[in-house]
């Protein structure tokens, strides 16, 4: 690859993605319809959205070393708060979206300041508990606000006409693309700032950061809040893309899915979480189609049962990636290159057992 190409490929890819709605390129196997068809755009938009969400989640996991099991809470807060602001407060989309994202920010700040009082895996458990409380609250439908299991549709009268209807899918697609670019920019900008270097220090060795006279707590809280805000904004995009809010967005499976995406693509790398989010979302949809297809229904039970459960396949795939591809897909090219290079094997390191 020549140097300019290497440098400019993200921009080229962005241009190609921006132009995608005008293309009628058929991608059989990857997509059902041609590239610019509403169905394809909808799927790609979801892929881009989850690519962005995973990138924002990796700000915690890969950049700061915080394993949060409650990220879905901030995503669902942005989603529900925006929807409810339009439905019950009679706000238009833009103020509602600002309100919804702000709700995520405030909630992340408040709950982060409590959760970060415990470190290590205790933090993971506490974030999980908070998220679970949120999921329960949404499902129990307090005062008929959240709509319980059914969720609530976004009110068409508060949405701009350009975002309603199947003929306007391209506009939604561009919003998802914009969200992805925004997330990548925020993550890139913050991680290369002085604060980002402290985050990297916390990830490597929190005590060393303390020795330097810095208090990790504040830096971790900042990462948690920024990441929560990005998730809230993602919730707004999700609301527009799917036309409503449903409780699945708040469940622990939603956080675990983000975790799978990040690890699949490569935690702590610039493009890994994006890649993982896109692949996971695409695979989940295609596997869902596969599960309902006649081909699978005719298989013997030994094959049909696992193939009919996308979560089973994804869970198994995840375990395989953890084992066989430490560092995720983003590290794959480097691993292949290292594998081809002869006799560059690292000296055998005996690992301590029980330590760590």
């Amino acid at each position, binding site marked *: 690859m020549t140097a300019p190409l290497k440098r400019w490929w993200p921009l080229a890819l962005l241009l190609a993605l921006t132009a995608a709605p005008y293309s009628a390129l058929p991608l059989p196997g990857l997509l059902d319809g041609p590239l610019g068809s509403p169905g394809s755009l909808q799927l790609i938009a979801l892929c881009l959205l989850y690519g962005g969400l995973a990138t924002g989640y990796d700000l915690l996991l890969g950049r700061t070393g915080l*394993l949060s099991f409650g990220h879905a809470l901030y995503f669902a807060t942005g989603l529900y708060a925006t929807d409810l602001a339009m439905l019950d407060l009679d706000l238009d989309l833009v103020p509602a979206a600002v309100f919804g994202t702000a709700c995520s920010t405030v909630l992340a700040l408040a709950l982060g300041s*409590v*959760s970060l*009082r*415990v*470190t*290590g*895996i*205790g933090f*993971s*458990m*506490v974030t*999980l*508990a*908070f998220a*679970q*409380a949120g999921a*329960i*609250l949404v*499902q*129990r*439908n*307090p*005062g008929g606000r959240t709509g319980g299991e059914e969720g609530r549709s976004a009110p068409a009268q508060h949405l701009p006409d350009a975002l309603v209807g199947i003929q306007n899918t391209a506009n939604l697609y561009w919003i998802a693309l914009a969200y992805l670019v925004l997330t990548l920019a925020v993550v890139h900008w913050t991680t290369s700032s002085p604060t980002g270097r402290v985050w990297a220090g916390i990830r490597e060795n929190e005590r060393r950061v303390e020795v330097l006279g810095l208090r990790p707590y504040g830096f971790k809280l900042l990462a948690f809040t920024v990441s929560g805000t990005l998730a809230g904004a993602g919730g707004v995009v999700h609301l527009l893309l799917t036309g409503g809010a449903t409780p699945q967005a708040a469940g*622990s*499976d939603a956080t*675990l899915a983000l*975790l*799978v995406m990040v*690890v699949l693509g490569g935690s702590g790398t610039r493009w890994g979480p994006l890649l993982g989010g896109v692949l996971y979302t695409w695979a989940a949809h295609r596997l869902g189609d596969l599960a309902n297809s006649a081909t699978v229904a005719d298989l013997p039970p030994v094959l049909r*049962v*696992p193939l*009919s*459960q*996308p*979560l*089973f396949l*994804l*869970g*198994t*795939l*995840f*375990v395989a990636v*953890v*084992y066989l591809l*430490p560092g995720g897909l983003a590290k794959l090219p480097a691993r292949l290159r290292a594998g081809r290079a002869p006799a560059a094997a690292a000296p055998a390191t005996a*690992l*301590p*057992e*029980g*330590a*760590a």
Partner: protein
Amino acid sequence: MSTVVLLACTGLGLGALYFLVASGLSLVFGLMDVLNFAHGALLSVGAYAAWWAATDGHLGFWLAVAFGTVVGTAASVLLELVLIRPLYARPRDQILATVGVGLALPALLMGIWGSDARPFPQPAALSGTVDLLGATVPVNRFVLVAAALAVLLLLRLFLARTRYGLIVRAGVEDRAMVTALGIDVRRAFTLVFAIGGAAASLGGALAGLYFGSVNPSQGTGLLVFAFVVVVMGGTGSVTGAAVASVGVGLVQQFANYAAVPGLGAAGLGDLSVVVLLAVLLLVKPRGLTGRLA
């Protein structure tokens, strides 16, 4: 008064269930630093194995429960040997591997037996009620409490009286030092996984009795409260887990009863548990026994 008694008994029954899940979780985490996300799935495996034995297998209730426990224990040991053990040098990947299993196993159960709840056969002797201080309390509450007490007693005997119990207690404090005394601590790892799997799958089989049915997501739902119990009780502490389980179960039941206008009554119990956890962490960031790392 009768309501209070009923709520207390139900809370204790629920607490017993939490303890069965949390005790193993706490030991595994205390000893190995592995937060086992597949622990809830092990509960579901035990529940479905017991349900299958009781219906398709035509076994009696207690034999079915024993069968479920054995299957769950075997699954837990298999998990440790095949998935956890090769990843000892990569602690975070151990957790991620259990996340994958925790997703895949319930999905597999769903694929085989469907996502709907399956009614769990109730033996006549355990499906009745008992009059206690004016309250009519279902017998199955007492079955759960008795099972949890038995497990607590056995675990305490194991920890206090056996060499492996000693190794587990020492390993919770300082795993590396245990190996520096010439002990192969990995055997203790497999053992605590077996114990944890046994307790969880016993809990799963009895959860079928308590809830009247089994469904694939039961285990994962209980797991979250078990995590809360582990954090509150202090990791690696069986007694702490027992106390925290009872606390969580009772708080949940009583808060559920105290309906608040505007908020569905049933949600308050679950929420209050989380609030309890948040308050506790603010006051004592290291958990009740102060051993959370």
